[in-house]
């Protein structure tokens, strides 16, 4: 039997700290470490244009993570219902912003679209898998905080 839920809970703020911001800043910190490697690889494969495009792609991924975390943690401080709405519309908003960010530079002389695309996918997924490892460890050791490795 599932426990009945009080409908008023949807209008209350969500408990817990703003974990999204800490996850997001962790990913950006790790991304800053590997960014020179990604830029160098793109520079070797696609030349100078590839390096600049890769840098732009990394900036897009960082901005996307930050904006997502900011939207979700702000909405969670207000209410659970708003969290649901903001997450869905935030997804649409961020997709639109990424499209605009790429559309704005598509004809720039320094852009290499294959390098930009590859960087966006590899950085986004790579940072997520990297972060997932630490989050999984900290969730598995949640009752034994002193033994658990730190999130960052």
């Amino acid at each position, binding site marked *: 039997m599932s426990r009945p839920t009080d409908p008023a809970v949807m209008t209350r703020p969500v408990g817990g700290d703003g974990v999204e911001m800490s996850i997001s800043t962790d990913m950006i910190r790790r991304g800053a470490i590997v960014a020179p490697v990604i830029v160098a690889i793109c520079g070797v494969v696609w030349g100078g244009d590839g390096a600049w495009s890769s840098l732009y792609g990394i900036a897009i991924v960082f901005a996307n993570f930050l904006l997502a975390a900011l939207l979700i943690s702000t909405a969670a401080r207000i209410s659970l219902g708003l*969290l649901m709405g903001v997450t869905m519309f935030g*997804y649409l908003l961020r997709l639109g912003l990424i499209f605009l960010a790429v559309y704005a530079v598509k004809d720039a002389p320094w852009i290499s679209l294959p390098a930009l695309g590859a960087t966006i996918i590899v950085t*986004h997924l790579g940072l997520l898998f990297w972060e997932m490892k630490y*989050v999984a460890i900290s969730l598995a050791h949640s009752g034994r905080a002193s033994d658990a490795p730190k999130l960052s």
Partner: protein
Amino acid sequence: MEALSLLVAVEEAAAADDAKNANAAIGAGFAYGLAAIGPGIGIGYLVGKSVEAMARQPEAAGMVRTTMFLGIAFTEALALIGFVVFILLKFA
């Protein structure tokens, strides 16, 4: 007569180019549209279930929010892959 056949050949080549561009645009539109719909459904389902979990067990909200945020980012990666296919088809 030769000039006329040359003109027809140029017209046919232009029409073939138009058709190719139109097909690329349609393909790019489908790639982006379909790639955005799937993750949209996925994120809706994920967030709906997470909100339900937080409403039922507010004490577990921190853990649920952590996994929800990572889940959203992973689901969004699918849309980004579709987006990259779109920009390569449309602009490259």
